[in-house]
């Protein structure tokens, strides 16, 4: 019985193609809107997470000064840090994975007869792990080079490309690179990270800390401390003890303001992604309302259709259709229509969010859950809003219905 009723429902949809299409338009738009919003929202969240984690996972950046800069150096007059600060953090604070003292300077680097304005960082090997850097080729510094401040450097992909051209991550290794007055040997090339919200991270040259201090800045100070936490650590307590330690080491009295600041990528990531999640939910909810409106549209058309087809229903009842069969036929019509609308909506949403994700430069993440959920929900709307018109059809008196003009 179910099969034949299903056939009947399909035939009557097919007989009224234009009306069927208009009926499901509301559902199509609703489903497409919900899925597009959520997919793009998820993509945006993912993009933010990726950008922040490319700075380094679970990274705390300690900078001198009170400002909360996006990685800028401390303001004048405020004392900078020393290597001893880094060692103290490593040994006194639990849950720390690595600490890298970092000095930096903006320089013009020269090689191959070409100039390139870049930033040179001086640090220890911990720098590579705190910043989540991988080597495309070559090696990082050895102990002797670090202690002695040897003339060696590791360069980022942008610097490599500008100075040496050629194949990605290959050419340039073993060549000489001049930074200010000294030449260093390129011993490693970093794997590219690409653009992020923080600028081109690949536009860097890294030398051992002592090399930078002796040959570039001429100072034993360290401008930034990079502290990476062990995986799964909560940043809040660690940040608190880090702050306490730094206050002690910098001899700040009770009540004094901090003369340093701690930039927390984990917290930033959480804040930003929870913001985008709220926005995604909000947009999804607004779109869900349109899905509901679409459902009411289906009920509207189904009611009109039942009235219009009164004689047809009368005939069906007269030739022996059971009440339940007529009910089921109209219910199936509604469900098939709304499920079809859901399917078309999914297709449109997939295409739209794919294109829009490209335009918005966020990753396209196909979320199976939201797609399934929207589909089931739209079919459910068919049942919900199709039941009332279907029952009205089923309970008609065949004699009255046949007489209907």
């Amino acid at each position, binding site marked *: *019985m179910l099969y034949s009723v299903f056939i009947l429902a399909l035939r009557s949809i097919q007989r009224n193609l234009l009306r069927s299409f208009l009926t499901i338009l509301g559902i199509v738009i609703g489903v497409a809107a919900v899925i597009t919003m959520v997919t793009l929202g998820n993509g945006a969240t993912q993009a933010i997470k990726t950008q922040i984690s490319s700075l380094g996972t679970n990274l705390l950046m300690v900078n001198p000064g009170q400002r909360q800069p996006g990685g800028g150096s401390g303001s004048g007059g405020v004392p900078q840090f020393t290597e001893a600060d880094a060692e103290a953090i490593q040994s006194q604070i639990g849950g720390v994975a690595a600490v890298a003292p970092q000095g930096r300077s903006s320089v013009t680097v020269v090689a191959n007869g070409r100039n390139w304005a870049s930033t040179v960082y001086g640090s220890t090997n911990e720098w590579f792990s705190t910043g989540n850097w991988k080597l495309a080729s070559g090696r990082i510094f050895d102990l002797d080079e670090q202690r002695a401040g040897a003339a060696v450097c590791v360069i980022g992909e942008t610097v490599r490309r500008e100075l040496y051209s050629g194949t990605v991550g290959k050419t340039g290794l073993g060549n000489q690179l001049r930074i200010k007055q000294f030449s260093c040997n390129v011993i490693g090339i970093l794997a590219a990270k690409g653009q992020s919200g923080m600028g081109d991270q690949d536009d860097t040259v890294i030398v051992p800390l002592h090399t930078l201090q002796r040959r570039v800045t001429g100072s034993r100070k360290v401008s930034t401390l990079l502290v990476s936490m062990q995986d799964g650590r909560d940043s809040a307590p660690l940040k608190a003890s880090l702050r306490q330690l730094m206050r002690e080491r910098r001899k700040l009295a009770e009540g004094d303001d901090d003369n340093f600041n701690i930039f927390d990528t984990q917290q930033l990531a959480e804040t930003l992604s929870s913001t985008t999640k709220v926005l995604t939910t909000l947009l999804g909810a607004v779109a869900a309302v349109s899905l509901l409106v679409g459902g009411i549209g289906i009920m509207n058309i189904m009611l009109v259709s039942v009235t219009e087809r009164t004689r*047809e229903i009368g005939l069906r009842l007269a*030739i*022996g259709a059971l*009440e*339940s069969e007529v009910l089921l036929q109209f219910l199936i019509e509604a469900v098939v229509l709304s499920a079809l609308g859901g399917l078309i909506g999914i297709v449109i949403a997939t295409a739209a969010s794919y294109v829009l994700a490209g335009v918005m430069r966020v990753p396209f993440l196909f979320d199976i859950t939201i797609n399934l959920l929207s589909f089931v929900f739209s079919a459910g709307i068919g049942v919900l809003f199709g039941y009332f018109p279907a029952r009205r059809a089923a309970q008609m008196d065949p004699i009255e219905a*046949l007489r209907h003009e």
Partner: protein
Amino acid sequence: MSESLIQLIDVKRKYGTGASELMALNGINLSIMPGEFVAIMGPSGSGKSTAMNILGCLDTPSSGQYLFKGAHVEALSRDQRARLRRRYLGFVFQGFNLLARTSAQENVELPLLYRGDNAVKRREAATKALASVGLSGWEHHTPTELSGGQQQRVAIARAIVTEPAVLLADEPTGNLDTQRSHEIMGLLVALNRDHGITVLMVTHEADMAAYAHRMVHFTDGKIAKDVANPHPTMVASVDVGQIVST
């Protein structure tokens, strides 16, 4: 001694209550044998349509008994009557009542769908029924592409595709011109004579009623006259499939 196919015993049907109460049928007794061709006649408001609805199991009597093949129809539920209709009854209406934008074939298959027959069986039966009303080759035409006479033939094919015991025709020629009317009557006579289908037909046209073997006249909710027609209009024993399709 054959059993009655249909038996109405003191059937009454009233509409409304109190002052507006209307006695549409007031004590009907009627017995119809299998294979009969009965014309039900009478002026409008005489109760013949109400009687037809009750005979067609679409309506139930307010009081009295309706025995169909010995079963008490008045005691059946709505769904039980629907099952009885789909098994034993075929309907032909004045207004044809074909599904719009639906081929003749699909229209005829409709009752079989409700009976749950499979596609092959449905197609075969519908083709055969259409052939027996002289519409071979018109299977894929929709009602708008058919003349009135042809539409009524499709409706008749739909009524007989289930091989019913009784064919109930409510003014089957009411919307047709004289020539088409006689063709349709010829078809009904042939179905009655050659297939043994009992035919009950409501009509107010005497020359259509003249095809029947028996005429039942209704007046004011009662049977005024119930007479045999000793000389029904003869229809040549032609193969109905050969009737020119018009």
